[in-house]
């Protein structure tokens, strides 16, 4: 107990009510991290196989897709390192769909925190994203081992992958904030988003690569920031001969579209959540 008695007059500060952040950045970060880690542990430590499940989910999906598309449909024959590409794509997509899917209900689920504590609201969707990041990190280790065994040569461009990951996390966080803020007032966000993630799964070059798409469609598909990020990962990580997102999008100025969308989603997500945060407690 360290209460300074007779200390200098503490500066009075205004209480503005709840906000998206607040209470200092350190507390914000501590809370996000603590909640994320706790959630992560709770999800996997209760089960017998524990953390293995986190690894198994994308691997099982990969196994099914690989057998169906590569063996039955002879789909990936022309694509270099198809299975490595498929695996990394699935891992990245799983991160995106898991984080956004869990974020939708997050604020509503943590109702008691929002209604009974002075709590920086943005911690809630962000901690969901961080939890998925922990999953992603574990999965990426597995991916790395897999592609090295499979014969993909390490290159210096591998060092650029964190940039892609950073942008992916930012994009995911932006969407997570939009969804969780909207869900408070509109409960049908959840089924809509479930359908949307399916759409994104097929609308993003995960099973296929962008070069196999008719060229008019390429520009449309590449407007999706997720597609841009996956294509760039392909170029940097797996196949240096791949077009990369600038070329796939059709050169300047087309490649600006996914960039602008990504920036817009992030800023809009921040703005929207910030705007809604003060009243969330009353709307729940």
């Amino acid at each position, binding site marked *: 107990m360290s209460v300074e008695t007779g200390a200098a007059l503490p500066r009075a500060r205004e*209480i503005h009510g709840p906000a998206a952040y607040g209470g200092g950045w350190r507390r914000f970060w501590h809370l996000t991290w603590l909640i994320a880690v706790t959630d992560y542990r709770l999800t996997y430590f209760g089960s017998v196989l524990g953390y293995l499940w986190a690894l198994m989910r994308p691997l099982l999906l990969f196994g099914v897709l690989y057998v169906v598309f590569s063996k039955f449909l002879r789909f990936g024959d022309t694509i270099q390192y198809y299975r490595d590409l498929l695996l990394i794509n699935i891992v990245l997509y799983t991160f995106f769909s898991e984080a956004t899917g869990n974020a939708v209900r997050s604020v509503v689920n943590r109702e008691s925190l929002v209604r009974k504590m002075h709590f920086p609201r943005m911690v809630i969707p962000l901690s969901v994203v961080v939890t998925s990041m922990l999953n992603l990190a574990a999965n990426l280790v597995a991916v790395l081992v897999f592609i090295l065994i499979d014969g993909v040569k390490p290159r210096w461009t591998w060092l650029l992958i964190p940039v892609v990951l950073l942008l992916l996390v930012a994009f995911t966080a932006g969407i997570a904030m939009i969804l969780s803020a909207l869900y408070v007032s509109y409960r049908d966000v959840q089924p809509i988003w479930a359908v949307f993630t399916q759409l994104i799964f097929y609308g993003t070059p995960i099973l296929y690569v962008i070069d196999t798409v008719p060229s008019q469609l390429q520009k449309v598909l590449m407007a999706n920031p997720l597609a841009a990020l996956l294509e760039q990962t392909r170029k940097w990580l797996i196949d240096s001969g791949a077009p990369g997102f600038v070329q796939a999008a059709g050169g300047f100025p087309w490649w600006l579209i996914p960039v602008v969308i990504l920036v817009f989603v992030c800023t809009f997500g921040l703005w929207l959540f910030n705007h809604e945060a003060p009243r969330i407690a009353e709307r729940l």
Partner: protein
Amino acid sequence: MAELAPPGPVGAGATSGRTVPKRRYAAIEVRDLEKTFRIPRQQVNTFKERALHPFRRARYEELNVLRGITFDVLEGEFFGIVGRNGSGKSTLLKCLAGIYRSDAGSIRVAGRISPFIELGVGFNPDLTARENVVINAVMMGLTPREARARFDQVLEFAELQDFVDLKLKNYSSGMQVRLAFAVMVQSGAEILLIDEVLAVGDAAFQQRCFDEFLRLRDEGRTIVLVTHDMTIVDRFCHRAMLITGGEIETIGAPGQVGARYLERNFEAMSQRSETTQESSVAGASAEIAEIWVENDAGMRVETVPHGQPLHLHARIDVHGRVQEPIVDIWVDDENGARVFATSTRPWPEAPPAEAGQSLHVRVDLDNRLAGGRYHIGCSLLSGSATLAVVALVNRHKPFVVYGSSHVFGLVAIDHELHVDRESSA
């Protein structure tokens, strides 16, 4: 909590020995605070509803919960906020804690706030006590390192050292309360906001909470306590505030505010039910026209303070001759038990009451009734041969006695309470 007897002689009041803190500065400064809830008549919760009725503005009912609240809580003060259910006191606390945003006015706070609005908010039943304590302490503004450092103190206070690694879902509710309270106390915040959470937990733990309150108060922490329980306000608070209908009714000494609160409370109680069971006797030659309670000033009242003179009145209109009239008048408590009754019976030679006469009955008594709700009744009997009921009014006109908060039972007789301690060798 009412069963906890206050320490020392009843009536001595705990005000003695309570040092008023040196007035230094306002720890909490509230100015013209307004809070309105907009309650939608029809909640639009889906896009479909929005799409089908794009132009229908959601209609709201405005609920003005707080109006023009202005007060200061000084540093080191134990400040009580009392009010009836729905008066807005909890909303006020939530505004102070930064959970609700106020619509107008300002709140300024000097120091770190630790709100204690509800028990175990943020507790996760699947985690152990250790993990929960750390998370909770971080929510209250500590760093994880500080939280871990205080962990032992917290458990010691909560007396839960043996259950550190037990998952919280296996805790009893009392244990959870202890843990939550311990975290709050040990978080070291300068300002504590407490919403009557102490109603849970066993008597021994409550006593420890009270001890802790005293300690925190003497340590100079600022505490704002929202409660229904006037005994607590009386025992701990330096000052108290009564909120009625979203406005401040009084701010002042706990005793004064407490009396006002009880008065308000019972006023509402007596208005609530005017159950009058009148039994009129068929073909009666008299009727009890009116029956009422007066205070010492001669005003008709429905609430009377304990300890002051009380006057019961009845007016009986006689329509036909009544031989040897006998008037009974009585007071029943809420359960129908007769607390007091009196009669004119010792005078059988009373002259008959004639038609057209009006009998005015008056009983002057010293109000020794304990706090609660009472009914008065009156009857006129004719005692010439057998006792025949001529007119009767039973359970009429409830009135409420307030005050005498530490005394239970039917009556509050003047008394002194002593506890002598002898230690056996």
